[in-house]
């Protein structure tokens, strides 16, 4: 299983802060996880500026995801 977390406007669009999913496939990448999230929630997140993290480090959508990872999706950050 992988734990997927959502923050800020993405959390609000999905109406939930986190989901537990099974790894979409062997050799899955972050984009595959996003697709699985969209399929499960029925909310289309594509077409907007989304950032991703795996195990609390920024990654590209093509980054690999393994079983047990924590994946997160969020909009561009606006701290400081």
């Amino acid at each position, binding site marked *: 299983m992988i734990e997927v977390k959502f923050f800020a406007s993405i959390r609000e669009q999905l109406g939930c802060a986190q989901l537990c999913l099974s790894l979409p496939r062997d050799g899955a990448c972050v984009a595959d996880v996003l697709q699985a999230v969209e399929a499960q929630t029925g909310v289309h997140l594509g077409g907007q500026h989304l950032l991703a993290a795996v195990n609390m480090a920024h990654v590209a959508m093509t980054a690999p995801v393994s079983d047990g990872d924590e994946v997160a999706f969020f909009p561009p*950050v606006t*701290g400081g």
Partner: protein
Amino acid sequence: MLVKVQAADFDSQAEINAFPQEGIRGAGGLVSFVGTVRDYSDAADILAMEIEHYPGMTERELERISAEARAHYDILDSLIIHRFGRLGPNERIVQVTVWARHRAAAFDACRFLIDVLKTSAPFWKREITPTGMRWVTDCPGCRAGTREGHSHGVAPAVGHQHSSMHK
């Protein structure tokens, strides 16, 4: 390096005074930046600001950029404090302090840290205005660390304008 992510307000000078002395022996000075909540945006008065963060990743990112600053600049140590939760106008949000033997490295590293923090630390601001709440959206000018003031037209969803004192 020291990183603090907290809801509580902080006293900038007290934080500097309390910083562990071992790491900053030989310092010729320090440079500190303190960011506060603006009381205006383009469209409305701001009653309050809500800051959401990603617990765990936030600390990791701030520690990562602190290590990067030490690797790239001739500095002795650094302190980053960032608040989350609901903040009123003019309240302190963030402090970056850098100790160095010489001023140039202290200024450069402080500037580097606040600029990189803005594009990498997982915080999200939401403005509370008289007409409701809205997420502050990404600002490419801020992302580039533009020195001069810059303005936005109608794009992005929440258009906003910065004065030359933007930070």
